[in-house]
């Protein structure tokens, strides 16, 4: 199978999954969905030299070309290589040619070797810069005069040069300093240079970085390109090595470029001096200059994120100059001041934080297992697909595959080395090539990564853009993990973690109750922020280069069956274009024979990235926007499309305590221990390995796909017949592909479940840009379908207690979808009434009466049946230890928040904010109201109203009502209703169009009448967002818990990455520098705002449940806990809802928006001023509130049920 299309970083590309869109609830309109949301396209532009690619000697030509470039660079002209493809001999044409080629190849190789040797000897990297300022130049000149000098003298002169450079006034031209608005192309190049320097510093290629910096610096016209960050990066690199001379050179260059050094520059200089034990005088001068520039020595230790060892060097230098200096003590961690969280962070008061059920030793063992997983590149998981029969064919295919892979490894290694050599040469010409990037990982790692990608390349091919992005991201992630290995980070982590475990383990005690984050912070200094991720163009460039290597190197014999060696090789990967109206998409597609080989071989293992698999030990607590979750793999607190930085900036600018609520809630959700429901997994696997079952959500295998009635036509069939056949074939093929993608998704899920069977595992969480929380591992988590949810249960059990069994029964009835209008006691009675069916389902799930299969959520129903059966049969049900999560669902949660915001009594009553004996059903109410309108219209003789008689049901309006809250438009609403009407077999279909138009109008009208305040608030939010975005800003706000939010909808900008086998163009709409997309900003605001509220409510509930010792997880507005704890959770949930809405939420929002967007009047054009004034007016006229008494929520049984 061509598995693992989705093997990507957790926050990365969920393309395939999200494109199937099946599991994504409609209410998630505003979510970001990986790369697919930023519409990407790749366009191609031809490259001349491609011509030679397919001649079977591509690598030779590459070397030759590289050689030509090298020779040109050295202005030698020993060899002239004829370019031009046509005079290359044709393969297989004549033996003579082949011989000649072979001879030529050998000769070239020799020359190449000779050249490389020669280069090693003769090529020197520049260290001395060309200085443009005469004054500075003379300082340096002095130090160079009189060549052979003692090192002391040289050092003395370097010191003078440094001092002179520091004193020199920064002759910043205003243009230079305010060069904030850089044109896009220059910006791209700058990103490339900066990433180059950073990578050089990581890979110990400082001389090369220095060389390139010097080369660029000495070009007068290129100086615009170099930024302060670049000089600082190189300087810091030297400082870490303690190389004074080069450091001084860079400092001089920095001043020479007219830049003024910032804190980082001084830190680098001081660090270098600290390492070398420089004389006091120089250090003092340096500090003095630094102070004159407005930086205090304390800031070196507070404002900069330096590693411990670097800080020590820095401190040595500062203390030497000022013996009295001591670094500012670490400020005690500030306390969150949010009123809603006051109780959570109160020092006193009852706290009974839950412990894990595992002892310290077990947890420590689990930690080392997880660490091992993360240190290796990826996880191999046994596939649960039925193993193929080991026929001769299969064995043969596996053997061939293995041989080929061995060959490819060798080939890839060779091509990689050649590419590196070429790039090194180009770098020596001063180009920021990918050379240091290719040094980040070992050659073996690159090769195995590429082979892995080749194995999972889908048979229909993959756009180069996606492949390149994926590869780039993989390298980046591996590199970040490796960085941590280089320093002694891993060791320190181990120590700190095992101390941390004392807080969680069942058999240890800590001195006082702590939240996990608080305790973690106590145990050591905060983590240094990781290296900034590379920009998307850099990522793509690297990925494209790697993909190109793969295309170049990987070949197979034309006839895979024929004996190897003698026969002609053909490429495995083809670079083809697909044509989409006006654009071309470059695609890498494997040779069909290779795909077939893989299918026949049916390798029984799947490979996942470490971040795609749940963790084997409790995740690291979240302590900052970039530290938490996985042990080594970096995970972001707020997930977003790669390359989006706006929210990251906001988060980093926050006061540290402001995020505590979110950090602690996410930590707590991630700390819930899970296990696989083994019995259920067995049943699912049974169905899966058999023929699947669409009704039960187990996708059938590809072999069950529809087959066309005829495969071939008799010769001489008419074109029309052929056209018909083609259509049928296409239809079948499409269905088969869809089935395959669903099947793969299930295969990953079930294989992971099987892999984790009998283990305890954890699902680390992060959040989206609105604060909604999600588990990080993408394939196997509790957010998925009914099947996915049913496979999971709490690893820790709790006795059912007095009412636990009742809650289990009610939960069961809820899962079946029956008795929705009945009270809890009626549901309970119903469960008792059907106890026989329940027990039958539990005992004979596949052979009995199969009652569970008819339920809305069959697998969860079955799991619940089994739990109930076990509980009722245990001697004392109250003592039965239950692991099953029991759910409580908000009834139309979005409308609940709107009704509470507007204190709308009528609305509140219909969404169960007020106590009542029976659950209120807002959908039915809307349906009733719509029916009333219809009857009126029918009486007045409206035809469509008459036609609709008897068809207006709850089901027809439900989806529309549900999604109206999340901003569905009339257009979308009509489509939903149309779909429902089409499902009704007896509805006259010719009226669907008219009827759906009519109905959507009625639904909107009745909602407006029932939820008048909702519409008013929605309108107010929309209008504000409209004005804000028209004034040129993206909408921002802060949730009641203090999470800063910014809407990532901007106008699209095209970015082109040129060079290589094709240029790639991608559009990105996520960047703050682009103007906002007014339509999306406007339409997105109401639903996103409501989502930020529901996430706040969830987090508050989570934190308070934690405080009361409960296990708690959530799927947005569906809260889970143990059956015994449902009453407590329900109480907390209502309490927190009331507290949340007791805050002046809308008033605070209005105040925030006014302060943020209406406070700069200066330099505004009249039209803008008018907008801002209007915005201010809008913000000040808040929608009016009703007189609903919030306190009633506390007594409402069906608020969450």
């Amino acid at each position, binding site marked *: 199978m061509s598995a693992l299309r989705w093997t990507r970083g957790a926050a990365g590309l969920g393309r395939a999954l999200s494109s199937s869109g099946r599991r994504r609830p409609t209410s998630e309109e505003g979510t970001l969905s990986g790369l*697919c949301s930023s519409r990407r396209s790749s366009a191609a532009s031809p490259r001349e030299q491609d011509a030679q690619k397919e001649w079977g000697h591509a690598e030779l030509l590459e070397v030759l070309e590289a050689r030509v470039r090298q020779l040109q660079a050295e202005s030698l002209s020993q060899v002239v290589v004829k370019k031009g493809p046509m005079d290359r001999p044709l*393969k297989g044409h004549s033996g003579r040619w082949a011989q000649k080629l072979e001879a030529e190849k050998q000769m070239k190789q020799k020359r190449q070797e000779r050249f490389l040797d020669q280069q090693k000897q003769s090529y020197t990297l520049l260290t001395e810069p060309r200085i443009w300022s005469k004054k500075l130049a003379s300082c340096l000149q002095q130090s160079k005069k009189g060549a052979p000098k003692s090192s002391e003298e040289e050092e003395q002169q370097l010191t003078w040069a440094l001092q002179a450079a520091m004193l020199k006034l920064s002759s910043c031209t205003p243009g230079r300093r305010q060069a904030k608005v850089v044109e896009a192309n220059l910006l791209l190049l700058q990103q490339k240079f900066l990433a180059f320097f950073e990578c050089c510093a990581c890979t110990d290629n400082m001389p090369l970085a220095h060389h390139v910096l010097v080369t660029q610096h000495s070009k007068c016209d290129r100086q615009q390109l170099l930024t302060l960050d670049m000089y600082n990066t190189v300087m810091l690199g030297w400082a870490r090595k303690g190389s004074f001379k080069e450091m001084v050179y860079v400092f001089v260059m920095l001043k020479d470029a007219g830049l003024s050094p910032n804190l980082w520059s001084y830190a680098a200089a001081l660090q270098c001096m600290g390492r070398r034990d420089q004389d006091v005088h120089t250090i003092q001068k340096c500090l003095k200059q630094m102070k004159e520039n407005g930086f205090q020595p304390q800031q070196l230790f507070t404002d900069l994120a330096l590693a411990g060892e670097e800080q020590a060097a820095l401190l040595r230098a500062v203390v030497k100059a000022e013996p009295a200096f001591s670094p500012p003590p670490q400020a005690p961690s500030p306390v969150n001041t949010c009123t809603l969280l006051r109780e959570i962070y109160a020092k006193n008061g009852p706290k009974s934080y839950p412990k894990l059920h595992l002892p310290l030793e077990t947890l420590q063992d689990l930690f080392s297992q997880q660490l091992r997983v993360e240190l290796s590149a990826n996880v191999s998981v046994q596939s649960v697909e039925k193993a193929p029969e080991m026929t001769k064919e299969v064995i043969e295919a596996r053997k061939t595959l293995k041989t080929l892979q061995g060959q490819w490894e060798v080939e890839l290694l060779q091509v990689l080395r050649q590419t590196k050599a070429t790039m090194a040469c180009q770098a020596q010409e001063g180009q920021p090539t990918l050379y240091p990037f290719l040094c980040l990982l070992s050659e073996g790692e690159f090769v195995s990564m590429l082979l892995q990608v080749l194995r999972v390349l889908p048979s229909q091919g993959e756009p180069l853009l996606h492949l390149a992005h994926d590869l780039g991201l993989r390298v980046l992630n591996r590199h970040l993990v490796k960085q941590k290995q280089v320093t002694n980070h891993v060791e320190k982590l181990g120590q700190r973690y095992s101390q941390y475990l004392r807080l969680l383990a069942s058999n240890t005690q800590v001195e006082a109750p702590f939240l996990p984050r608080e305790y973690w912070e106590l145990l050591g200094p905060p983590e240094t922020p990781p290296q900034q991720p590379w920009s998307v163009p850099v990522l793509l460039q690297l990925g494209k280069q790697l993909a190109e290597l793969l295309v170049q190197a990987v070949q197979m014999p034309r006839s895979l069956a024929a004996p190897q060696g003698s026969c002609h090789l053909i490429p495995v990967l083809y670079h083809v274009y697909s044509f989409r109206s006006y654009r071309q998409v470059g695609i890498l597609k494997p040779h069909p024979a290779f795909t077939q080989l893989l299918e026949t071989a049916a390798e029984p293992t799947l490979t996942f990235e470490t971040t795609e698999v749940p963790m084997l030990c409790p995740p690291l607590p979240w302590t900052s926007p970039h530290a938490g979750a996985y042990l080594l793999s970096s995970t972001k607190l707020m997930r977003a499309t790669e390359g989006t930085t706006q929210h990251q900036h906001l988060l980093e600018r926050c006061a540290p305590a402001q995020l505590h609520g979110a950090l602690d809630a996410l930590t707590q959700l991630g700390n819930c221990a899970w296990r696989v429901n083994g019995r259920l997994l067995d049943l699912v696997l049974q169905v899966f390995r058999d023929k699947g079952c669409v009704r039960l959500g187990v996708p059938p295998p590809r072999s069950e796909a529809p087959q066309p009635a005829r495969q071939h036509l008799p010769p001489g069939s008419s074109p*029309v017949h*052929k056209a018909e056949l*083609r259509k049928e074939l296409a239809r079948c093929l499409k269905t088969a592909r869809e089935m395959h993608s669903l099947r793969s998704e299930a295969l990953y899920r079930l294989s992971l479940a099987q892999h984790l069977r009998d283990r305890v595992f954890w699902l680390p969480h992060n959040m989206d840009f609105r604060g909604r929380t999600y588990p990080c591992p993408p394939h196997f988590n509790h957010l998925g379908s009914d099947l996915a949810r049913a496979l999971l249960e709490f690893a820790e059990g709790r006795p059912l207690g007095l009412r636990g069994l009742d809650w289990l029964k009610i939960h069961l009835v809820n899962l079946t979808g029956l008795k929705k209008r009945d009270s809890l006691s009626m549901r309970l009675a119903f469960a008792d009434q059907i106890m026989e069916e329940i027990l039958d389902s539990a005992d004979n799930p596949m052979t009995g009466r199969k009652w569970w299969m008819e339920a809305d959520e069959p697998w969860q129903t079955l799991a619940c049946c089994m739990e109930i059966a076990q509980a009722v049969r245990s001697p004392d049900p109250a003592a039965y230890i239950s692991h099953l999560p029991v759910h409580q669902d908000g009834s139309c949660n979005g409308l609940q928040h709107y009704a509470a915001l507007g204190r709308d009594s009528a609305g509140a009553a219909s969404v169960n904010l007020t106590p009542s004996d029976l659950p209120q059903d807002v959908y039915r109410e809307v349906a009733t109201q719509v029916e009333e309108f219809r009857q009126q219209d029918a009486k007045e003789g409206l035809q469509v109203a008459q036609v609709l008689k008897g068809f207006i049901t709850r089901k027809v309006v439900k989806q529309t009502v549900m999604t109206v809250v999340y901003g569905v438009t009339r257009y979308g609403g009509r489509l939903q209703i149309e779909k429902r009407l089409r499902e009704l077999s007896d509805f006259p279909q010719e009226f669907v169009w008219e009827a759906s138009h009519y109905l959507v109008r009625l639904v909107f009208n009745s909602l407006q009448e029932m939820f008048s305040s909702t519409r008013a608030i929605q309108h107010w939010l929309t209008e504000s967002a409209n004005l804000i975005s028209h004034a040129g800003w993206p909408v921002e706000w802060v949730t009641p818990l203090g999470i800063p939010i910014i809407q990532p909808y901007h106008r699209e900008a095209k970015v082109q990455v040129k060079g290589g086998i094709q240029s790639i163009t991608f559009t990105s709409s996520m960047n703050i520098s682009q103007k906002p997309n007014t339509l999306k900003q406007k339409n997105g605001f109401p639903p996103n705002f409501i989502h930020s509220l529901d996430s706040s409510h969830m987090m508050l509930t989570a934190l308070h449940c934690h405080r009361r010792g409960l296990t708690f997880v959530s799927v947005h507005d569906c809260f889970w806990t143990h059956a015994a704890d449902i009453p407590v959770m329900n109480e907390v949930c209502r309490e927190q809802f009331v507290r949340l809405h007791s805050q002046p939420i809308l008033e605070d929002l209005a105040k925030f928006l006014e302060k943020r967007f209406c406070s700069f009047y200066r330099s505004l054009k009249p039209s803008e001023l008018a907008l801002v004034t209007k915005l201010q007016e809008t913000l000040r006229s808040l929608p009016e509130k009703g007189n609903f008494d919030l306190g009633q929520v506390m007594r409402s049984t069906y608020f969450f049920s």
Partner: protein
Amino acid sequence: MWGAAMGLPPRLALSVLAGPGRSCILGSGAATRKDWQARNRSGFSEFYLQPLFDPDLEESPFYAFKGRAEPTRHVASKKLARNLARHLLGFQKPSRQLILECNPGVPIKVFGILPDKYGRRILWKTLFDLYSCDSIFRYGRIELNLFVTDKEFQKLTATPKRPDLYQVLSVLWQLACDIKFIHMESLKSMKENLYFIQMTPRKGLFTEHLSPLNYDIFFHMVKHCFGKRSAPIIQHLSSLSTVEPIDVLRQVRLNPGATILQMYPQDFKRLFETIERSEDTIFKWIYNESLEDIQA
């Protein structure tokens, strides 16, 4: 007069077939393909179209013509109408029988003006229909009589001798149809000249190796070759097909270094058919239609 009675809608969508009368008139662009199907099922068109090649198809019921949904516009200029009638009918008495008799195998004629803005799009859509025997081409080799702009005319009829105009559309249309220039009308209101052309699908378009079953691969091949115009054909072949390119090129007697500018439309067809004919591999093409499905 015959010509004057003919409706010429403002915007055309060639897949739409509706209306009464002796000739078929293209519906206005607002209608969609679905509409056409629906309408055709309920038999809105006055004369009953029997699909030519497919006796298996269900017969749709015949109803009398009830009325036209689309607004029509008439040829206002007398001169234009006269010229049109003259060129089309050669001064003969206009009648349906006559047209059919003149062109055996051409069951129906379609007249229209190719709108400037959507011209290209309609030409492409029609090409797809033509090669896949879909839409009106289910009924046979429908003759198209179109007013096209100067620019489109040049493109449609371009050969490698006009590298600036030679395009994928030129190749595919010239292969598919016999394109006959009938009349040029210079309109004062527009700066461009309008060309009246007659395009009759060729009898021999479909062969054993090029048929509605695989036309999409052929389209892709031609598009690919025009994607990098300056690249030699052999390079295109090696990323399009797994068949040994040298052998194929030798068979069709094309120079491996040739670019599309040395290839006439017929050469593309021969090249394609040769690859389709080759037997040395089970997988002939890298392309398959899933390529178009990939999200990008």
